[in-house]
């Protein structure tokens, strides 16, 4: 299919060639269009969740920033935004630091019970969130951590570590161990070797792991619904209650902002991936 159709293609083959592309186009439409639809809708001048006649006529009166204004002035949303930006970075720091160390440890050649340890460390990603949330709710309330900032941060850090482990392990696979030996032979102690030699090389993996951990915490809603108290309401929590109870179009403005955020994150990741491939001498794809 990579090459255009050969001259001897039968009419059925030609038909199928284009039909297949149309089908794929429809599937891509299904993938993208829900996300794209909410962007214009968030500029709706009315409190409706559908396109008003004014919007369809591209009448400027049909569009407004009122939902964005509401988001930036409503104290509930502002508190949620602040909470999100207080919880996610802290969880990311813990997850990235612990995850990177563990991934380096796991990449050594002799690790006792490697696969068992790996299974334990990856488990937060496998166990359904509702079960993690239930367990954490029971256990953290015994410890008095339920409804506290640190309880939420610890839970989110635990959920984010598997992503860090996976991405950092992937970069360490191609890591040339003789570089650390060379550094050691020239008198660098292990800490210097780590920060001057190993860290710059695995940094792309660490950063993408950190981004994954960040988005995990930033998007997470199940665990925080159970673990958090009213003073820890994050953006997803606010959106969840908004969608379940009094659905307000401000949600669409928030959603649009979050789509923009994910585009930025995706772009950063793609940039890091290409850069690291270039540095490691692999051909940039």
């Amino acid at each position, binding site marked *: 299919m990579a090459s255009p159709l050969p001259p001897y293609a039968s009419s059925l083959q030609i038909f*199928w060639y284009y039909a297949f592309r149309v089908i794929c186009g429809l599937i891509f439409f299904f*993938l993208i269009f829900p996300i794209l639809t909410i962007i214009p*809708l968030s500029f709706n001048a009315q409190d409706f969740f559908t396109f008003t006649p004014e919007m369809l006529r591209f009448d400027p009166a049909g569009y407004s920033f009122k939902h964005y204004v509401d988001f930036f002035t409503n104290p509930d949303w502002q508190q949620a935004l602040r909470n999100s930006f207080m919880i996610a970075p802290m969880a990311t720091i813990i997850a990235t630091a612990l995850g990177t160390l563990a991934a380096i440890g796991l990449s050594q050649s002799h690790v006792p019970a490697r696969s068992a340890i790996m299974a334990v460390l990856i488990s937060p990603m496998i166990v*359904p969130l509702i079960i993690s949330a239930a367990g954490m709710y029971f*256990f953290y309330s015994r410890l008095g951590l339920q409804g506290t900032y640190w309880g939420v941060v610890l839970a989110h850090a635990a959920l984010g570590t598997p992503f860090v482990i*996976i991405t950092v392990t992937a970069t360490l696979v191609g890591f040339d161990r003789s570089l650390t030996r060379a550094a050691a032979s020239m008198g660098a102690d292990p800490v210097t070797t780590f920060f001057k030699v190993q860290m710059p090389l695995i940094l792309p993996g660490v950063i993408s792991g950190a981004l994954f951990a960040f988005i995990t915490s930033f998007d997470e809603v199940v665990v925080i619904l159970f673990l958090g108290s009213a003073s820890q309401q994050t953006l997803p929590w606010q959106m969840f209650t908004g969608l379940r109870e009094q659905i307000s179009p401000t949600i669409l403005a928030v959603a649009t902002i*979050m789509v923009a955020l994910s585009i930025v994150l995706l772009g950063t990741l793609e940039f890091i991936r290409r850069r690291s491939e270039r540095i490691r001498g692999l051909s940039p794809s």
Partner: protein
Amino acid sequence: MSSADMTHVEQMPDDGVMRAADGTPLKKRLARALRREKMRSFVLIAPLLFFILLSFLAPIADMLFRSVENDIVQNTIPETVTELQNWDSASGSAPPEEVYAAFYRDFLVAREKRIHTRLGSRLNYELSGMSGMFRRTGRDIRRFDEAGPFKPQFIKSDEDWGAVETWRVIKKFSSLYTAGYYLSAIDAESTSESFELKPADERIYIKLFIRTMWMSLLITFSTLLLGYPIAYLMSHTKRSTANLLMILVLLPFWTSLLVRTSAWKVLLQQQGVINDFLVWINVVDDSARLVMINNQLGTIIAMTHILLPFMILPLYSVMQTISPSYVRAAKSMGANDWTAFWRVYFPNTIPGIGAGAILVFILAIGYYITPELVGGTQGVFISNRIAFHISSSLNWGLAAALGAILLLLVLLLFYCYDKIVGIDNVKLG
């Protein structure tokens, strides 16, 4: 070589053992180096291992413990439990006066601590009406005659205290551990000897488990149906086009789950975009707008969209490795397009299908947010029931038992995934 070195060498015993420069056997030195390396890797892993054990596995273990834990009866009415051991629940008559006397003393203590209603609501899960009995007697017990006899006074407060069934339940649930929550979770109840399923119309959890699995299967199947062509297209076009298409796949993957769920809520509503469009092009009458949300259809559409990237990514990575010469060889030997695809190409993609299908299925059966928001009453999953028991009905034991069953299911599936794909091969984007 200096003479000092010569003497050093001479000092070593000549027993054929390989030795390092300082005279220790090489084997020992190697073992020590290996041990040191193991130690170093362990020191690096230990902080995270400890962290995960404490913040994640301990909560899971706690949940499993809660699903069998049952110390409330024993702790609240200890004397009664001791006395009840002498009573034969099969005798067909209510317990003797000693049991009621012990129960009176226990009840007073419990009432003082205000924990008698908690015991009532715990026992209410097993026999409805118990909660009310405990509350009523909690009010009446101040007026009881301390001299006794207590049996008639209890029966006067609530006549069910004279029923054999009441005491049978108390006796049955007085042990420290119980399988009762698990029995409830599979819609069974224990009889005097064994256990049996509840009447068919009262079986809600089995139905819910089956519905969860059935809908997850449907979702898995529709992601496969939609994901396969996309992965095929991506692995059969130019590298640059494939990268562009990959971004289209990854964008939804990176978009917040709640954003996507709210998008579907907006689209599928009766006054939403899709219905408006259908009315506008006169496919659907304005008075007969389609109901696409708050039912199973809504859950399936939204979750197929959300989980589609998890199907496309493993399929794509497998399809990339299939050499195009296989299909060419098949065609050169006379296979038509369909035969070449179905007999040669498709079997090669089965590992990808397996990996993607298990991954999507695992993710789907544990989903909570999307069914909660677009599922209505008919489109909810077992997770929603667990959440309900934790936050609304407060039957934590049952929530824990349901969670444990779900966890077992997921771990079994994951074991299969590990066998097919390998735990290390999980790829992200």
